[in-house]
């Protein structure tokens, strides 16, 4: 418990005797969530190469508890690493809805953010936030692995603010979507 207590000076209090730890439920749950972000391996284009480097030895995503999962059923983070074509939009929405909540989305690179160099293409979606809500945007073409690590750390900060009392752990951003396309408060999973 020594390491945890060093990390949690203001949020957790050890009780006298050393056998007990007093903290809030929100903090305890969010702590588990932020250090066990299991991303779906979902590389779409060249950003995926940088994503793989971030998993590999030099940057070692495993240190953050970021362990890639092959199935959306086991994942709670969707790393959109690359260009989202309009033909891929349907499968992405399907994968997103197969993930258990709370689920998070990181848009990696200019293409996933806004279409990037393909913003005027006939076949490329102008940002993955048109179909699913995005928690963290990482700019770059492609972003370096340091930027991806920084984006994950920002997502961890965001997770730490989640409250159980406010809607089952999902943030309002997740409920609504970062760009409300239909105007009635939710896109309802419709593409």
């Amino acid at each position, binding site marked *: 418990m020594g390491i945890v207590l060093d990390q949690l000076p203001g949020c957790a209090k050890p009780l006298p005797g050393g056998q007990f730890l007093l903290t809030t439920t929100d903090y305890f749950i969010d702590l588990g969530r932020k250090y066990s972000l299991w991303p779906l391996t979902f590389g779409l284009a060249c950003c995926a190469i940088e994503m793989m480097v971030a998993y590999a030895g030099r940057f070692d995503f495993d240190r953050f508890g970021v362990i890639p999962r092959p199935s959306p059923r086991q994942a709670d983070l969707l790393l959109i690493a690359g260009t989202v074509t*309009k*033909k891929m*939009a349907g499968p992405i929405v399907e994968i997103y809805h197969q993930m258990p909540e709370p689920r998070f989305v990181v848009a990696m690179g200019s293409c996933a953010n806004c279409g990037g160099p393909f913003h005027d293409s*006939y*076949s490329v*979606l*102008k940002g993955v936030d048109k*179909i699913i809500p995005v928690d963290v945007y990482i700019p770059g073409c492609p972003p370096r692995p340091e930027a991806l690590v920084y984006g994950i750390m920002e997502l961890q900060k965001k997770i730490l603010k989640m409250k159980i009392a406010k809607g089952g752990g999902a943030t309002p951003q997740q409920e609504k979507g970062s760009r409300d396309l239909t105007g009635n408060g939710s896109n309802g999973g419709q*593409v």
Partner: protein
Amino acid sequence: MASTKDAALARLLEHLSSAEPAAHPIKDYPTVRLSDPAEITKAAAFLKDELGFDYLEMITAVDWLGPMQLDGLAAARTAAHPFKETPLKADPPVTPAPGAGAAYRPVLDLLWSFGNLRENLKMFLRLEVPRDQAEVASLTALFPAADWQEREAFDLLGVRFLGHPNLTKILTTEDLAGHPLRKDYAHQKDRFDE
């Protein structure tokens, strides 16, 4: 079998009646310009059976219409029929590009690439078809690999391959009308565009 690229080119030209070496070959590969669309099957069969070119690498095409002024074209098409490509009433204005050095003309320049893996040879066939009548015989009976290649050329450039077993879209979404790599393609806004 042919031992060198020159021998292969000579034998193919000898076999075909209306073919000639292309004026602008692709790099230094033997490139044959066909003038009769009916001869592509004959040429491909000869390449495969006699010259050992048993590997179809690629089928594609180039639209030589040249740069176009597309302002208002998409809106006109959308108004005419939202999800169907409407043929243009008149030829859209063709803007010459000064200094480009290319002769713009309303043709699709088709390109087939054949490989001979045993002798490390490569052969290109070219054939011009008119844009509004872009039809050519399919090679799927000779090369199963031609299936998806021809579907791609059909999807992106609108070349119709006669005799293809399943000539449907392969890359673009179902609601995309038209052929995006054609020079007069004007994108109509779909459900993903703002």
